[in-house]
């Protein structure tokens, strides 16, 4: 240690390695500091990898990367204690070929290690097993390096890709202390199952994957959710909900996970699965208007550390990669423009805002508003929707039109016309 690089990247996740790869390709001397003993050892996600950015970085990734299954089936359901109403179940062959093939299940340990290797081959220097303890400022206040247990490393620019907890961004005042209503906890279990059983149960072919997502009872009707994702010969099963909702419910996260696994509409999908691992991670559900400061003098913040998470469409890894790429392009431009100045890094913010990253963060603001103002929103909506569907299709001695009218009347007893129109508009705005 004690070395000097043009750029130091803290964290070897998708944001950090996208940044390191891009920097190395641009000929910038870059060192990556990773606290895990190998890249991937600390990283957890759902985990669907959306490859829109990866495709630009490494177009041949499909042949090279350790991918699990190509997600061709996406299913969204509302769960109550004893019913399941599937609101979307889309399987399309189009998702199996370019240009639409862009969602894969992955094992983060394997994938993150591969991505780091690619950046290493491009020329980035990886130092694993080193914790970045503090950012160092020069006498003028510019951030000029990182203090680690192994000593100091100096750099013109430091890119923070140190994950949701980003202790370094907090230390230099780029972000405030988190509050429990702006952070979700995800707990997950990986269960092994024979490949054939996975394909039969999820109705997919050998090279296909499925993503099942659930709202409602598994997270006690809070604005969180649960999921099952198919890997090669394992399933990822998880629940995600805000820390504020978790504290209020007074139930432990692993109890929620276990209840979800044992839900009558879920358990048979997992039957016989053998637990391989249990994991946990937080999600920064800050929302666009509570994002941390993304640039400082000598520092850029990317990925989860920057709160770049799309809570409506459950995207994170692609936003992380895109932000890492843009942070790297901004840093690479420093040298071309004749050296670092205090305004060198402003372009990063502009680049993010012109891309899908900030446009999607802005679109998700409606959802964040609902989470802030109406934490019970999903309780009434989901229960009423499931009740309506159940009533409407029940066979009784009543004529059909009476049966459906009566179901509708029950539904309408919870929602007046104006309320109904508002909810419909709100739902539409959430996805548009």
């Amino acid at each position: 240690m004690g070395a000097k690089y043009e750029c130091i990247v803290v964290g070897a996740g998708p944001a950090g390695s996208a940044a390191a790869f891009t920097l190395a390709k641009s000929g910038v001397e870059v060192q990556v500091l990773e606290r895990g003993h190998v890249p991937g050892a600390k990283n957890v996600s759902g985990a669907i990898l959306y490859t829109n950015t990866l495709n630009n970085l490494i177009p041949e990734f499909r042949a090279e990367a350790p991918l699990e299954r190509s997600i061709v089936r996406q299913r969204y359901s509302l769960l109550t204690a004893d019913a399941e109403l599937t609101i979307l179940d889309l399987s399309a062959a189009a998702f199996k070929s370019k240009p639409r093939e862009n969602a894969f299940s992955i094992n983060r340990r394997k994938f993150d290690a591969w991505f780091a290797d690619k950046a290493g081959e491009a020329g980035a220097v990886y130092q694993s097993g080193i914790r970045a303890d503090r950012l160092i400022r020069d006498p003028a206040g510019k951030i000029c390096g990182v203090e680690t247990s192994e000593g100091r490393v100096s750099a013109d620019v430091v890119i923070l890709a140190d994950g949701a907890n980003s202790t370094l961004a907090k230390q230099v005042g780029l972000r405030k202390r988190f509050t429990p209503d702006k952070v979700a906890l995800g707990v997950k279990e990986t269960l092994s199952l024979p490949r054939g059983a996975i394909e039969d149960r999820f109705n997919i072919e050998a090279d296909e994957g499925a993503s099942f997502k659930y709202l409602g009872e598994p997270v006690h009707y809070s604005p969180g959710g649960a999921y099952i994702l198919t890997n090669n010969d394992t399933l990822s099963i998880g629940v995600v909900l805000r820390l504020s909702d978790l504290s209020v419910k007074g139930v432990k996260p692993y109890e929620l996970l276990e209840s979800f696994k044992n839900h009558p509409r879920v358990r048979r999908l997992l039957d016989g699965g053998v637990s391989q691992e249990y994991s946990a991670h937080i999600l920064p559900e800050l929302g666009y208007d509570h994002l941390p400061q993304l640039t400082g003098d000598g520092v850029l913040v990317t990925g989860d550390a920057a709160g770049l998470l799309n809570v409506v469409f459950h995207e994170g890894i692609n936003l992380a990669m895109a932000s890492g790429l843009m942070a790297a392009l901004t840093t690479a431009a420093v040298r071309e423009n004749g050296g670092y100045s205090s305004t060198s890094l402003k372009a990063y913010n502009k680049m993010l805002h012109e891309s899908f990253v900030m446009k999607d963060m802005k679109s998700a603001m409606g959802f964040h508003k609902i989470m802030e103002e109406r934490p019970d929103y999903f309780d009434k909506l989901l229960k009423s929707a499931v009740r309506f569907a159940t009533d409407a299709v029940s066979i009784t001695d009543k004529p059909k039109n009476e049966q459906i009218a009566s179901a509708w009347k029950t539904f309408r007893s919870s929602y007046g016309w104006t309320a109904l129109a508002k909810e419909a508009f709100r739902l539409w705005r959430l996805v548009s």
Partner: protein
Amino acid sequence: MTLPTNAHASASLIEDKLSKVQFINHADSHLAVRDQQTCRRCVLRPCVDVCPGAVYDYSNEEGLSVAYENCLECGSCKIVCEFDNIEWNYPPGGFGVDYQWG
């Protein structure tokens, strides 16, 4: 509000889940309680409820105990502690949870 589940069943559930997690634990804890008196005054002790690794336990005799060896490094405990009473850090480089699947 869910009724408190059987404490024994809950302990056995998390013990079972943690047995599937690999750790490279350091001899020293990376987590610390700043002031036990604050925990004694705390009514809800949300750290105990939200921690996915059951790291925290409270008793009148012992106060708040910290089983750092079970820490999944998520950071939830320090976020829910309204008294900012948990000194939270990552384990030293190379140590701590070692996810194989993530």
